[in-house]
């Protein structure tokens, strides 16, 4: 119960210093350290991140070069060989190299889009929860409206209108995914502002901004952390879905979702490697974030389990 936990700077546990970002940090870490799912998730995320960062160094080929020997004599993709470890696609490009560079694109969009969504959600939710009144009502009714939209459809419409580019996709993902966190933050902040120590801080004459940042934020970090991690998994899927539906970052950029789309034509199913490897890459990434997020939630036990993504 985050709401009823003592504030971080009044914590009784000796190891949690006043500036500790997460309340009961020691206990959380003791739980996480022994959680196999947490470590498994960390290894997966670290692997994908390393692949993304080191892509230019470790990729065997240029991801957008179309090799003459990358296609059979009838123009079909080549299965795995010593030159193309995971085979080639319909344009004779090396799948392994495209997967590695695809990790860059996927993680960039995910970090940026989800990061923006977290910032939007937390700021709007905190403002609405702290000041309530007319401003709070407007923000929360707007959240209701945004939650009513099927998010993928809305995102498709927005990206379709603006044209798919990296910045449009990041912004649209942020625009349709901030709502749940906004509701959670709103609930937490409006509960916390009634508590005695907050009243004490107000009586001491601290400014609203100071109370929000120094006294309220530490209590929000646990749910935000959990939500942001699970949100990463959702955003990877979201970006993949956009690309799969043809509204990802345009070619020649390598995108996992688009690679699956290219291989999923009924006539190209015999070239199974076109689908299997990018699917595996997406699965591993999503699994990593879900494992870490799930372990974090169990460790921090925030009362607000994230709602179902729509």
């Amino acid at each position, binding site marked *: 119960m985050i709401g009823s936990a003592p504030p971080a700077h009044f914590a009784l546990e000796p190891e949690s210093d006043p500036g500790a970002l997460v309340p009961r940090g020691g206990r959380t870490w003791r739980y996480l350290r022994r959680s196999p799912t947490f470590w498994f998730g960390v290894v997966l995320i670290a692997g994908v991140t390393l692949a993304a960062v080191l892509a230019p160094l470790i990729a065997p080929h240029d991801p957008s070069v179309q090799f003459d020997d990358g296609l059979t004599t009838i123009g079909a993709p080549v299965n795995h060989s010593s030159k193309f470890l995971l085979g080639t696609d319909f344009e004779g490009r090396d799948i392994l190299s495209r997967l590695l560079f695809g990790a860059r694109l996927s993680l960039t969009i995910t970090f940026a889009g989800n990061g923006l969504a977290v910032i939007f959600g937390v700021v709007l939710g905190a403002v609405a929860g702290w000041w309530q009144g007319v401003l709070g009502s407007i923000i929360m009714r707007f959240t209701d409206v945004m939650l*009513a939209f*099927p998010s993928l*459809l809305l995102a*498709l*419409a927005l990206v379709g209108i603006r044209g798919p580019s990296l910045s449009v996709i990041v912004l649209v993902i942020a625009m349709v995914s901030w709502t749940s966190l906004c509701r959670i933050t709103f609930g937490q902040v409006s509960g916390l502002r009634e508590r005695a120590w907050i009243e004490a801080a107000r009586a001491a004459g601290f400014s609203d901004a100071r109370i929000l940042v120094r006294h309220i934020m530490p209590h929000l970090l646990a749910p935000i952390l959990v939500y942001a991690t699970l949100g990463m998994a959702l955003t990877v899927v979201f970006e993949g879905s956009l690309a799969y539906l043809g509204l990802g970052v345009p070619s020649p950029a390598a995108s996992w979702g688009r690679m699956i789309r290219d291989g999923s034509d*009924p006539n190209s199913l*015999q070239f199974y490697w076109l689908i299997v490897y990018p*699917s595996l890459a997406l699965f591993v990434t999503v*699994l990593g974030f879900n494992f870490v997020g799930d372990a974090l939630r169990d460790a921090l036990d925030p009362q607000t389990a994230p709602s179902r993504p729509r």
Partner: protein
Amino acid sequence: MALYLVRRALWGILVLVGVSIITFLIAFEVPVDPARNIGGIHATRAALANIRHTYGLDQPVPVQYVRYLDRLAHGDLGRAFSVSEDVLPAIANRLPYTGVLALCGILFELAIGIPLGLLAAARPGRLIDRSSLLITLVIFSLPPFVLGNIVLLLFAFHWSVFPLGGADSATSIVLPAITLACGGAVWYTRLLRATLLDVLRADYIRTARAKGLSKARVVAFHALPNAVGPVVTQIGLDMGYFLGGVVVVESVFAWPGVGKLAFDAISHDDINLIMGTVLVGAVFVVVTNIAVDVVQAWLDPRIRLG
């Protein structure tokens, strides 16, 4: 109860007005001149001005919004040029397909999710509980377009058990429904496990056990009825979600529902049709939300009085 109903209905109307404002603004953002669209590339400047005047495009934005609302209220969502139909009938024609898919999806969800949740809650912390949590997490990590294409590859292409897509035979629905259900089943498992564990700690459960009833009987007849509330809520929310957002699954399996319609609309840049599906999806979400609230209030008097 009547007051509660009125309050929820007013909330729904307010949200729908907000939804319409946003769809109106999005349609406004389209970098295409609607007058040019109607008049064609050979229209003269005067003809364009004339068209603008006829369709009210020269009016102030708020006036245009009111006219837009008026059209919506009459069910006029414009023309979908990519299918040569009006938007609303085009969506209505595909709705039964999406409805059937959503229904089967929910049935599969419950068939997978409920037994797993029961098993997990019956032995908390034991191997079956841990493995069910792990399995649900793994399944949930398979995005629908990944899972859909993999089952398509295996069961339709490699082993030819099911058709490759479309809705031509009765077995066509199996793969899309399973794909749709897998991600959602996880939520039922976890939801049921959490609420059941809560309920199983109650005093009346101990009483039932103490008078000699078997554990299975207590779980099935004493605990389960008190734990299905959140599951009912989730079913309702799922209906709205499925009807609005099955784009991916329907595209993977070429299932001729609303989602596939939206997907085709996007590939043809048919903005009227896209916005139409967005709007209809939002209406479904709002309506199912209210329906869920009403059912909950009917089941639990504390909600409608609170």
